[in-house]
């Protein structure tokens, strides 16, 4: 009958379990944070410090660079390349607005109307990511090629006359004009707009639409007063996810643009890789970062999204 005496211990907590958790147990959360902290340190903090020190160095390639706290580099970089800065903001801003105009209806459709097609459309939105960014951008070169069907159609419809008048294109060319760069940026960053928009639209309780309709709001008013305000977190994160990388992008301007459409990303790239003027390149990077930081802060304050989440 030994089996009977070896009955499982009672389920009531026993004395040792009542002890406070051991020290190691309490430290576990911090140990779990360690990989992330290390990653940040090695791949974010250290490069930033290194770049910061580079930006205040002087010297030449042959003699080597030394930290001389030469802050004038910043001023020189800004005064020389401010057109490229402005262009970056303008192109990225236009692309962001276009992404919002194109992406919102799409996200709305996926969230509320797609039914069983929802997953398929989502896959179609993400599918371009399976191809390289470069290949996709190069494809636009073919799409917008001189004398190609797209340019031909735009020409026939006199769209190019309007865009030329706006300074977005020149003559009957689209390639190597600001329009081509903005098109490329819009195309490449559209999914970054659609996905956050979809997420925030999808979270909206369908009964709120019914309630608005029940309270005399026409469908368009329901959209203006209920759906759109509730999707603001998605609009804000979508525009940020589009604008920030677009402002620093150089591939689109490089492949689809011309020397007249150079953005700040192109300048930084050239300074770093061709001219090898590291301090200027680093200074430009910091100016761009600061500018984006300021714009984003103002934008988030203005849109008042902290109130929504």
């Amino acid at each position, binding site marked *: 009958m030994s089996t009977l005496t070896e009955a499982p211990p009672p389920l009531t907590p026993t004395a040792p379990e009542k002890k406070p958790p051991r020290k190691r147990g309490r430290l576990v959360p911090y140990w779990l944070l360690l990989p992330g902290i290390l990653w940040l340190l090695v791949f974010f903090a250290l490069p930033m410090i290194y770049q910061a020190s580079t930006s205040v160095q002087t010297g030449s390639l042959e003699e080597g660079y030394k930290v001389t706290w030469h802050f004038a580099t910043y001023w020189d970089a800004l005064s020389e390349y401010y057109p490229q800065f402005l262009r970056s903001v303008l192109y990225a801003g236009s692309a962001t607005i276009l992404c919002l105009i194109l992406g919102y209806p799409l996200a709305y459709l996926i969230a509320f109307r797609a039914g069983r097609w929802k997953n398929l459309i989502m896959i179609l939105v993400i599918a371009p990511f399976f191809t390289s960014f470069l290949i996709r951008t190069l494809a636009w070169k073919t799409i917008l090629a001189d004398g190609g069907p797209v340019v031909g159609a735009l020409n026939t419809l006199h769209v190019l006359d309007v865009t030329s008048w706006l300074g977005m294109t020149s003559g009957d060319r689209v390639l190597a004009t600001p329009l081509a760069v903005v098109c490329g940026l819009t195309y490449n960053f559209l999914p970054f707009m659609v996905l956050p928009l979809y997420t925030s639209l999808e979270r909206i309780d369908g009964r*709120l639409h019914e309630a608005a309709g029940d*309270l*005399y709001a026409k469908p368009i008013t329901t959209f203006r007063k209920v759906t759109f305000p509730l999707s603001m977190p998605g609009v804000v994160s979508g525009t940020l996810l589009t604008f920030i990388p677009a402002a620093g992008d150089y591939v689109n301007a490089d492949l689809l643009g011309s020397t007249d459409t150079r953005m700040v990303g192109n300048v930084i790239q050239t300074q770093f890789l061709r001219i090898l003027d590291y301090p200027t390149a680093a200074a430009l990077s910091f100016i761009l970062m600061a500018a984006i930081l300021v714009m984003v802060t103002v934008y988030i304050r203005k849109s008042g999204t902290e109130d929504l989440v």
Partner: protein
Amino acid sequence: MITVTTNKTDHGGDIRLSGIAKTYGSFTAVHPLDLTVPQGSFFALLGASGCGKTTTLRMIAGLEEPSAGTVHLGDQDVTALPPYKRPVNTVFQSYALFPHLDIFENVAFGLRRRGIKSVKKQVGDMLDLVQLGEQARKKPHQLSGGQQQRVAVARALINHPKVLLLDEPLGALDLKLRRQMQLELKRIQTEVGITFVHVTHDQEEAMTMADTVAVMNAGRVEQLGSPTDLYENPRTTFVANFLGTSNFIEAEVDSKSGDDIVLKAGGGKLVLPEARCGAATTPGGKVLVGVRPEKISLTHADDAGEIPEGRNRINGKITNGSFIGVCTQYVVDSAVCPDFEVYVQNVDRDTRLVPGADVVLHWSPAHTFGLDAAQDIDAGVEEGAAA
């Protein structure tokens, strides 16, 4: 000043549903239904979940398009009108308050959509009516469930709709708050005189609040009437079981004597007023004899001689007794019905009435009702218990 169109006591607020039906593919949510809800009444649609009551409500609101039939509000055919053009407002099940707007703006929403500019006084008055004047600048998620519920009512009522639709508005509240809100809603309804259509699965709630109750089952209205009428004269076993508890005895029609029918059941005789019998009464025919537990008296078998003449009697043995304060609920085993429920008022307790005691159940024939025997005795039992 704002002029508010008040409802005159005409029939402008009548709801008339004619042949209204809703099907989803091959599933019929609501069978063709004719229903008139008179202006100013408090009408309850009662039924278990999935019985079509909410679908019916949503068709009145315009949130669901009927597959057939028409909806009239007063003389106006509103079947084709979208919700925002109907003079009807809804209190949704989970309130559906706008999370990005504060309480004031939630309540003002309907007024603003109709182009009313100065809403301050109206909204203030309405918030006072539901005792939320202090909370005007809070967001919905900062309020308790009961407060949110009152905001939902205020948001709908401020528009002075011809009809207020309530879709299980008290479902998310705890019992005590629910009782309180039932009385509150009833008070508001009496005060404003608007037609209320209230959907609920809680029979007690329907009976407490409504003037007229429609009991729905599987997409059909099983019976319609005042709460007392439904309770005392159920026409189907579903209604008899869903509203409260009923005991049923299968009996055979023996003969008629005057206005009464005499029935045979388990060797004994039972008397049933013919007026209260909803089944054919040809001799030899089967009838389900029903009686409510609280109508029955329980006498110990030793005192059987003291039972007055002319009462329906059944012999049995107590199998269970539970004391619940105001009354004691007994379960009695008898030849005609294995578990007869009897509620005895806690006035003079007979200490002999314990499980195992032989007893005589007796009740006045006037409290007996008869139903067609060709139906499921237990219809509505689980639904009633679940509710």
